[in-house]
């Protein structure tokens, strides 16, 4: 299948992501911020699709937009919006934030300047249809062999399991 109007969709999605990203941090109302964040996540999912990574895009929608953001909203709904909108934002943390933002910007600029040379082996075009299988091979290994990320994956899942148990213990008074 030949992609259609690729630049248009790229700029649309990228623009949407940036604009809604700005909205996330400028809205005083936390629910509005959350909604803007959902738009950001969805546009990023669209960008993943354009990069021939449909599995990542699907997971992005399910996990972030569908799952985590619902929980975000769940919590935000219980917060007193009127009170939080009156509170001062960036309470004395803005120098740190500025430093972090500058560092990130520098990273982006340098990556942009070096361009193709920085990611030579990632630039090969992946066949769209086997994207999921390739991810699986990297994470779980193929034909009895450990994949390059199997160990990291298992460690991460163990960490998450510990976090879940911790959350259960912290909230339950009696087990």
């Amino acid at each position, binding site marked *: *299948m*030949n992609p*259609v109007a690729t630049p248009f969709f790229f700029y649309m999605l990228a623009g949407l992501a940036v604009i809604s990203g700005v909205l996330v941090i400028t809205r005083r*109302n936390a*629910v*509005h911020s959350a*909604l803007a964040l*959902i738009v950001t996540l969805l546009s990023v999912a669209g960008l993943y699709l354009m990069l021939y990574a*449909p*599995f990542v*895009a*699907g*997971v992005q*929608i*399910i996990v972030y*937009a*569908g*799952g985590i*953001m*619902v*929980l975000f*909203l*769940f919590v935000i*709904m*219980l917060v007193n919006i009127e009170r939080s909108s009156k509170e001062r934002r960036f309470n004395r943390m803005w120098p740190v934030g500025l430093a972090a933002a500058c560092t990130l910007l520098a990273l982006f600029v340098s990556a942009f300047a070096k361009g193709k040379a920085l990611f030579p082996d990632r630039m090969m075009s992946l066949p*769209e*249809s086997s*994207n*999921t*299988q390739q991810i699986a091979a990297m994470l779980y290994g193929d034909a009895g062999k450990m994949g390059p990320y199997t160990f990291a994956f298992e460690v991460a899942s163990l960490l998450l399991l510990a976090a879940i148990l911790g959350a259960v213990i912290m909230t339950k008074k009696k087990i």
Partner: protein
Amino acid sequence: MPNFIMSYLDGSVRGTPGEAGSQFWALIYVFIIFTGVSVAVMAMNWLERKALAHFQIRLGPMRVGPHGLLQPIADAIKLMLKEDIIPAEADQFVFWIAPMIGLLAAFAVYTVIPFGPSQAVSDMNIGILFMLGVSSLGVLGIVVAGWASNSHYPLIGALRSSAQMVSYEVAMGLAVVSAILMTSMNASGTGTLSMIGIVRAQQEQGVWFIFKFFPLGLIAFVIFAIAMIAETNRAPFDMAEAESELTAGYHTEYSGLRWSLFMLAEYATMIAVSSIAVTLWLGGWMRPFPNLLRAPAWDFIFSLFPGLTFVGLAAIALVGVVRMPVHSFFRIQRIGLAVFAALLGLIALLLLTIAVAGRSVDTTVAASSVARFREGIDHVYWFVLKVAVFMYLFIWYRATWPRYRFDQLMRVGWKVLLPISLGVLVVTAIVGVIVS
């Protein structure tokens, strides 16, 4: 005629428009599906009211059109003309956008639902993932609507439904994974996430996944069937809009068109999740026993089914005409129902003609396109029939059961469905390895 129109008519292009890269036909399909789903929702609205009424020894809508057939249209007009009330204390923008989110999520799902091997807008290779993801976005509409109403009952409804949908998604996802695992039980050992691929896998393995590794497939299917009722907020899991507790739950403050958008989204989601169940476990568009009864004669017999169904519907309508009391009051209704019966009969005739004409093994362009058309009708018919069974079940559940309480619902979700679905997944994997 331009090439892009002809490409689908002369049979030179196979597969979904998405695969073929035919934007024109993709748009046509989107249009057909959007219209079809909207009509199906209206039909479902009528059917639910009628079926529920007959469960409950009443007649249901009888006045607007013969046997209330035009009731959904009257309802739609009424809802569109009603005043659109936005509460003063509500968050205007979010209140305004919430029904749209729900509707968007409900309808976006239909892009990957395969009504037939080529009767889908697109065959995404992450089809099922996309479906689960997008349908899980529907909860955002509900949550946000409940919050934006700035009122207690909608807020509680939204809290309930967000907790409910997120928890049942887990069990649902695991049940789906066990079905996807079954697609990989072939020679190459590679499964698929594509909706069309899943049906094809059932075709190749010669068994609907509901019967595969009996009873593993069945258990996974039952878990999905339970979870999907919770996902769509239907009885007995309709805590989010439990009218006796929360008046109307998250849409208490909504009225008119905006309220009807919620209803449209709810019914569209019902059809969508039923389609997932049909695709994953009940062989999607396949007719019964496609491998066992594969002789052309059987093919022909099964292809008569769509026509015969419409003959049956026309007969039911005709019985209604005959049984209508003889009175001048009923004259217009009688004529209307007779016209409706005639229309159904005409469709039946058309379908039967296509079925008979499509049988010929002529290789001319015209004959082969008729045959292709007949095949398409068959696929869509069997798919829709299976989905219709689920729709009927939704009504049946609603008429039969009391409502679960919220904590009981969560207990069922986390302590019963989740462990069972995990167990089924593990056992399926083990059995799969042993078998292959």
